[in-house]
């Protein structure tokens, strides 16, 4: 007996590729551009969003029958805000340096369109277990892109991964730097994140026939 039914498993696997919130739905781009210069930050952001969206989806799903539809957006905002504050305080307590790097962007998870999108589109109409799977799935899809982008930006932009030098020392000129290699400063800047996301979309669309649009 499988852990998840086929239908439930699709909730997790779909957003990872064929219905990815960033590359297909083009949501949550703002934070994907802002914080992916380092892999550490990308990872923390991904985990934070997984927590907020997973728990938030369950909470909204549990309350879905008692929320008056006229004020549902406000209720959703309060739920996200509460969860985001928890994440923010945890980060400040246990990873202060990282929380400084991420600065306002943890707070801005509140405005991440993926979260409101999943609340509106899924949690309000489904039970808590399915809502949880959907939330985690979408957040994972978001996180995976963040990590891919962060990997390339940190590797090419700073020559490090998770802050550990992997290409050699740029000042002492060891490793690749001995051959005249230099870090690409453009990679650190947000415009390059947009281009990297664009390239991922390009690769994904040319691999997956179903996504190719008719002209």
């Amino acid at each position: 007996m499988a852990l998840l039914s086929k239908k439930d498993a699709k909730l997790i696997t779909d957003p990872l590729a064929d219905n990815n919130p960033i590359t297909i739905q083009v949501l949550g781009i703002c934070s994907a551009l802002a914080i992916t210069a380092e892999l550490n930050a990308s990872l923390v952001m991904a985990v934070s969003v997984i927590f907020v969206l997973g728990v938030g989806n369950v909470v909204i799903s549990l309350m879905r029958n008692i929320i008056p539809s006229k004020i549902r957006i406000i209720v959703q905002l309060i739920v996200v805000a509460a969860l985001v504050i928890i994440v923010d305080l945890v980060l400040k307590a246990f990873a202060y340096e990282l929380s400084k790097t991420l600065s306002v962007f943890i707070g801005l998870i509140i405005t991440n369109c993926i979260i409101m999108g999943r609340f509106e589109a899924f949690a309000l109409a489904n039970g808590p277990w399915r809502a949880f799977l959907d939330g985690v799935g979408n957040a994972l899809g978001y996180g995976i892109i963040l990590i891919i982008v962060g990997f390339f930006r940190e590797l090419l932009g700073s020559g490090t991964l998770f802050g550990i030098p992997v290409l050699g020392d740029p000042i002492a000129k060891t490793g690749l730097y001995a051959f005249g290699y230099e870090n690409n400063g453009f990679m650190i800047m947000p415009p390059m994140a947009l281009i990297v996301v664009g390239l991922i979309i390009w690769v994904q669309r040319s691999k997956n026939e179903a996504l190719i649009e008719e002209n």
Partner: protein
Amino acid sequence: MGLKQNLHKLKEKYKGTKIAPAFGAFHTFLYTPNDTAKAGTHIKAADDLKRTMNIVIIALIPCLIFAMFNAGYQQYLALGEIQAVSGGFFSSEFWTMDNLIVGLWKILPLVFVSYGVGLGVEFIFATIKDHEVEEGYLVTGMLVPLIVPIDIPIWMLTVAVIFGVVIGKEVFGGTGMNVLNPALTIRAFLFFAYPTWMSGDKVWVHGAVARTNEIAAGSTADAMSGETILGSLAQGNNVIESADSIWNAFYGFIPGSVGETSTLLILLGGLFLIFTKIGSWRIMLSSVLGALVMGLIFNGVADAGIISEGSNFYGLMNTTFWHHLLIGGFAFGVVYMATDPVTGSQTNKGKWIYGFLIGFLSIMIRVFNPAYPEGVMLAILLMNVFAPTIDHYVVKANVKRRLKRLKTIKA
């Protein structure tokens, strides 16, 4: 049997296969295509895309040749091995074999890499997408080596050319569809990715960076300066006041990006482009006007004492307004890159607005942002983005005007 027949045979042989466009491209590049219309009522015009591109390349060749002599001249001058020119444009100190050899050695690799890599990417894309190879890269490939610093590492140029051709052009649909000028996209990429190789006071003269490294490693040799006029002015050193230095800047005996120093040759190239109706005189003229207006405004601000002499901007603000036309890459950008028919404005009125803003913004960026010493690159890229918008409103205004006229006639 000549090359043409051979190429044609190869093309027929591989027809329908993946590499067919490659042969087709060589064929049309070297000879008139076989499949031209022979009968019927057609307007016969010689200026196809290939001819247009070739004329721009011809206009660039004097700049390239001058650049080769200048490369050696600047190096030997910085080393103190030769005297500065004293006899005008045809000074014997400048046009020497020694100077040319340095230039050939340093600049030909840039040209080969630019063409090799750029055309390679074009061929790959044509093969994958199964369309004919377009001539679009011919001019870009010549522009690129002329707008980079002479000591730029070859691998950086390779990366930048791949980036510029793929992101700047192919993703938009190839030649004729690009929003941004590909040559400037390549330069902007280099500029933001490897700023230490694209700005500062060392990279503009061959050998200066290497010498700096030697000194850092303990050598006692004299440091070489590669400071451009623009850089010195930005630091408040007034280096272009004497008539001699102005003429030198006009002739091009100054450090700078490879091929943009000689305002005289650029001017001749510009006149050639205007004469052959390839480049738009409206864009060139209005850009110059825009630059002069902005220069005058800054001169006025400096003269009125609004800005203190200690300010970061004072040096360039106080530069006599028309000197801005002679220094930096302004002239080169305006003549060869702002006039790009694909990325510039298409309407005549639009060209005036587009050009004027390029000139205006170039000088503004140049003065207000010492970190971006060459404003013309950013100004042209910015206006490339706005060109379609300008055209849209010009066309709309025209429609409105004509509707109004129609109404008055009817009434």
